[in-house]
């Protein structure tokens, strides 16, 4: 009898536990089809809440324009947001440009062909698209070997083609892949097989030069092998050519964010100033190259491969990784804010992501293999981080503290949040609190500053006591020496 009661009790307890635990487990598991993580100070993986979650997947099959079916996208190459909110997609395989409204719910227009003043022209695999700040549309018509410019009414304006310059090889064929335009209507173009950098064209469409060349890194070890190799061997070795840029975006101040594929995984994105120098900040670990842990076997291992970058507001930019289908978001100091996305066939995962764009609080990804557009919307977690980083970017560190504290409620070990709070306390002069949070944020530099001020304060307040104790000790020591000396003399005598 007693035994059965015990068993009953155990069952009841187990049932209660199950009821108590299971829903919370479900609640904890993020409803996203990918793993959300970040790297801590020691470059260990830490799992975080999702910063963005899949909102919608858009295929154009069912969409209609002027009573006709739009049809499936075919290997779309690029997507771009116009200043008025419309979204332009380069439907590369179908040789057309599709214009969506700002929510990508309906098609506002399709450019299949255009009249260049002489005759009706068609695109040949247009793989890049960009709308300038005055509303001009630039299309990188790859196989057409030209950039086509349209005005606000989508009427043809001009071609940018046949760049001529001494620095260009005679045999160079201009196959523009990606195009971007800055506030002064200068055109930046990434061309196929052009390793010198981004090609820049002035307002008249004249080629003015290369921009942001990536320097080739040759190690001393490579140089050594090169030296002892014979000519025949050398001709068979791989050439040291710089990697090309893969995608770009221009911020309102004219800085160009350009992504490239870095096989070392150290720097997959550059921020180029008007002179073409890289001025990106790389954060504590000196890395803006995506995943830090890239070991493993098979095609899934290896450094991240950034294919596109989007500059969002307040110094935040997101990079799109083709290797593992992830989106890495950095702030203006090069801190990795959050990671989301993945490869797969579910909604919100990709097979061959090709372009990224930001629409307010949404992030749009174009997948050229699944021929779809994926929209991600920010979660509370992502929103709070964006907000806090924005506040800090504007210099409102004090206001940012409250937001960072809410981030900590969602993700207790968030080092950025702890550092942010610590820095605010540091400026406010509360060094003890600053030390506590900077320690949690593993920020040695600022912890050290807080600690020095804290220590010096203590020293200043207690300098009287310290000096007194020191004096007493010295006197005691002198007396002790004298007494001991006398004893020694006695012993010897």
């Amino acid at each position, binding site marked *: 009898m007693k035994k059965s009661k015990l068993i009953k009790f155990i069952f009841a307890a187990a049932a209660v536990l199950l009821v108590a635990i299971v829903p919370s487990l479900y609640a904890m598991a993020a409803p996203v089809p990918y793993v959300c993580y970040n790297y801590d100070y020691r470059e260990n993986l830490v799992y975080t809440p999702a910063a963005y979650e899949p909102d919608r997947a858009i295929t154009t099959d069912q969409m209609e324009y002027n009573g006709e079916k739009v049809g499936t996208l075919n290997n779309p190459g690029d997507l771009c947001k116009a200043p008025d909110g419309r979204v332009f997609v380069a439907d590369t395989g179908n040789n057309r440009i599709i214009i969506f409204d700002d929510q990508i719910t309906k098609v506002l227009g399709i450019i299949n062909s255009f009249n260049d003043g002489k005759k009706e022209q068609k695109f040949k695999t247009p793989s890049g698209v960009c709308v300038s700040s005055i509303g001009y549309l630039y299309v990188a018509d790859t196989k057409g070997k030209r950039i086509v410019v349209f005005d606000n009414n989508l009427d043809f304006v001009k071609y940018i083609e046949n760049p001529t310059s001494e620095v260009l090889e005679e045999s160079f064929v201009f196959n523009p892949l990606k195009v971007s335009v800055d506030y002064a209507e200068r055109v930046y173009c990434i061309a196929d097989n052009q390793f010198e950098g981004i090609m820049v064209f002035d307002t008249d469409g004249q080629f003015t030069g290369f921009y942001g060349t990536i320097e080739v890194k040759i190690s001393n070890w490579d140089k050594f092998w090169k030296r002892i190799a014979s000519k025949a061997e050398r001709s068979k070795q791989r050439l040291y050519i710089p990697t090309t840029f893969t995608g770009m975006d221009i911020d309102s101040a004219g800085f160009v964010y350009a992504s490239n594929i870095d096989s070392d995984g150290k720097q997959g994105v550059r921020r180029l100033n008007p002179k073409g120098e890289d001025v990106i900040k790389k954060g504590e670990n000196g890395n803006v190259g995506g995943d830090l842990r890239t070991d493993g076997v098979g095609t899934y291992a290896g450094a991240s491969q950034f294919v596109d970058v989007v500059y969002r507001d307040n110094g935040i930019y997101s990079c799109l990784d083709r290797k593992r289908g992830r989106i890495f978001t950095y702030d203006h100091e090069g801190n990795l804010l959050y990671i989301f996305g993945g490869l797969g066939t579910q909604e919100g995962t990709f097979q061959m992501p090709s372009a990224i764009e930001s629409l307010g609080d949404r992030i749009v990804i174009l997948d050229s293999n699944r021929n779809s557009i994926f929209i991600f919307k920010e979660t509370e977690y992502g929103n709070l981080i964006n907000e806090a980083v924005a506040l800090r970017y504007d210099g409102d560190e004090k206001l940012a503290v409250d937001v960072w504290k809410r981030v900590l409620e969602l993700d207790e070990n968030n080092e950025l949040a702890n550092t942010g709070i610590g820095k605010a306390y540091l400026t406010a002069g509360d060094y003890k609190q600053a030390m506590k949070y900077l320690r949690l944020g593993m920020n*040695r530099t600022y912890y050290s500053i807080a600690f020095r001020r804290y220590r010096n304060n203590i020293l200043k307040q207690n300098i009287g006591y310290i000096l007194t104790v020191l004096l007493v000790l010295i006197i005691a020591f002198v007396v002790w020496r004298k007494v001991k000396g006398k004893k020694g003399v006695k012993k010897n005598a």
Partner: protein
Amino acid sequence: MREAFSKEKWKYLFYTIRHPMDGFYWIRHQERGSVPIAILCVIIFSLTFTGNRLLAAFIVNKIDPRNVDSWFELLGVLAFFLLICVSNWSITCLLNGEGRLKDIAIAIGYSTVPITIILAVATALSYAVADNEQALYSLLVAVGIAYGLIIMLIGIMQIHNYTLGKTMITLGLTFLAMLIIVFLLLLLSNLIGLVINFFRSVYIEIIFR
């Protein structure tokens, strides 16, 4: 045992640290040293070493505390101590060294003491240094280690009655001997494993017959 830990021996330990030339000479010739104290010194050194890694202040300490295992480190340091002593002894035996295994153990054990003291001081001091004073901390630790190594060198020189040049040569050979010993140990353990495996398979075969 009481004699090994007597007051004179302790006093002589600190005398040796301050006057290594003299100190180690009389350790060899007058039984002034004590092996138990030397082993204790090594154990304390190991604990201080772990303590420094775990407890040094955040600013100077870049070690992930999750990677520090004091028990494992103690065993490692003791094993290393034994390895050095045995390999040095086996080399110096062949090269007219006068020191006994006992003397070598004392020389090496005693010379860890300055490192121990300075590590402890540095660990305490680390709580008072800020960013630009880190150099002070590293310098202190470096000086401690250098001093320890120098008196270790002097100790080995004195107990074997070598010249400095010969000491250097024997130390190089000691390093080789250490490698050989490690290699032999690995080989031995591997072979023993094979033998055990063989008997186990025989046993299993018999059982399933």
